[in-house]
């Protein structure tokens, strides 16, 4: 099944396209890496798919219908991990994870312990996040990914600040997600070793320098 379809899509900044208009489709089970040089607008592109950036031209279709980014059904299928992960430093790891699933899935707090164990944070559940290292903070954010039931994962640089073992584990998770009918859109600076990675290229527009 086709999840996302882009037609003649390009993000704008101050009315100017950031990259050349493109047509792509994302189906169930697809793993897509968004590639392009620095400044081509990879982050902006991912944000615009999530409804966090509204200046673009062309159209996006979600399951065949024009995408409305505040649509309840769409938001229930979307997982977004950005540069800023949304982990609150004054809260503990457990509180952060519980809040996330409460807000996003309407779930009551229950399985955060197991999720935190999977990212190697057992014993840190009740430590305020400001006492954790950058890598550990990142893991708190990734713990949500391990518990996510959502179909479309949009991950902006998910591999930053985690070690080799963590990368392998995350790659495994992404692969499993695709095998069970989910789809993943991601950007990364690292080479990913997963089979069947498709790539969407952003070709920057030649900008006239003033």
């Amino acid at each position, binding site marked *: 099944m086709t999840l996302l379809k882009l037609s003649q899509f390009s993000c704008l900044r*101050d*009315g*100017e396209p950031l990259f050349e208009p493109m047509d792509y489709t994302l189906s169930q089970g697809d793993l897509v890496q968004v590639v392009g040089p620095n400044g081509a607008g990879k982050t902006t592109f991912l944000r615009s798919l999530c409804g966090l950036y509204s*200046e673009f031209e062309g159209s996006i279709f979600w399951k065949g219908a024009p995408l409305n980014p505040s649509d309840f059904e769409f938001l229930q299928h979307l997982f977004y991990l950005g540069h800023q992960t949304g982990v609150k430093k004054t809260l503990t790891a457990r509180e952060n994870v519980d809040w996330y699933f409460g807000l996003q899935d309407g779930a009551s707090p229950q399985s955060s312990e197991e999720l935190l164990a999977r990212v190697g944070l057992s014993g840190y559940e009740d430590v305020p996040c400001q006492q954790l290292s950058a890598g550990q903070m990142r893991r708190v954010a990734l713990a949500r990914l391990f518990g996510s039931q959502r179909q479309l994962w949009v991950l902006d640089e998910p591999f930053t600040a985690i070690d080799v073992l963590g990368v392998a584990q995350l790659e495994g998770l992404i692969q499993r997600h695709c095998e069970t009918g989910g789809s993943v859109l991601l950007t990364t600076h690292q080479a990913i070793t997963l089979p069947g990675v498709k790539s969407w290229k952003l070709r920057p527009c030649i900008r*006239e320098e003033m």
Partner: protein
Amino acid sequence: MNWQWLHRFGSPKWFYEKTGLWVVALGLCSITLLVVGAVWGLGFAPEDAKQGNSYRIIYIHVPAAVISMAGYYIMAIAGGVGLIWRTKLSFIVMRAAAPIGAWLTFAALFTGAVWGKPTWGTWWVWDARITSMLILLFLYLGVIALQQAFQHQDSADKTSAILALVGMVNVPIIYKSVEWWTTLHQPASIKFTQKSTIDPSMLYPLMIMFVAFYAFYFWCLLRSARAEILRREQKTAWVGEILMKGSR
């Protein structure tokens, strides 16, 4: 519903091409009427029995005050249209309207204060209208400050439009509460204009000045909006042609 016509109407190019003649007409009209109204009001209208010649300030004070108020609504509605239908032109109009409105509000405040000196013997009175005018000036300055604060044009437009709309909802509330406040704190004897009927010989120049100020307001708004269109669309070919004209 089909909003295609609105987008054509909201296209900067269309607007720029259609308003060329209007600018000339409004300009001539406003300058003539301003001169006629001012000369009539200053030199030909008779003296007021109570206030003496100082009442002649009314011919610029009242039109400026009324237009600065109307200008806020024009600005806010333009912003609202921009937020709902995403027309480029409305934000351009909104951007152009803010400084014009702020300057006219300042003009109304200044003339009100100067008028107060011969009438009440003091430069500043916490009169309901003057106080509301001052708050209106703050509202304008807030919108301008927000427009200036953002690097990103789109954010500047949309946030200042929301602020202008919130302000628009608040303006009547502010006016009513300030009015109520002055009845509490001040003897009712101080009033700007008597309710008595004004002699036609005094009224005609006022009416001319009203029309003149409205014409002037829209003339300025059109010209600022046209300049803003050229600034924002300078990367398009048609604006490039206009800007290069006369320089080769």
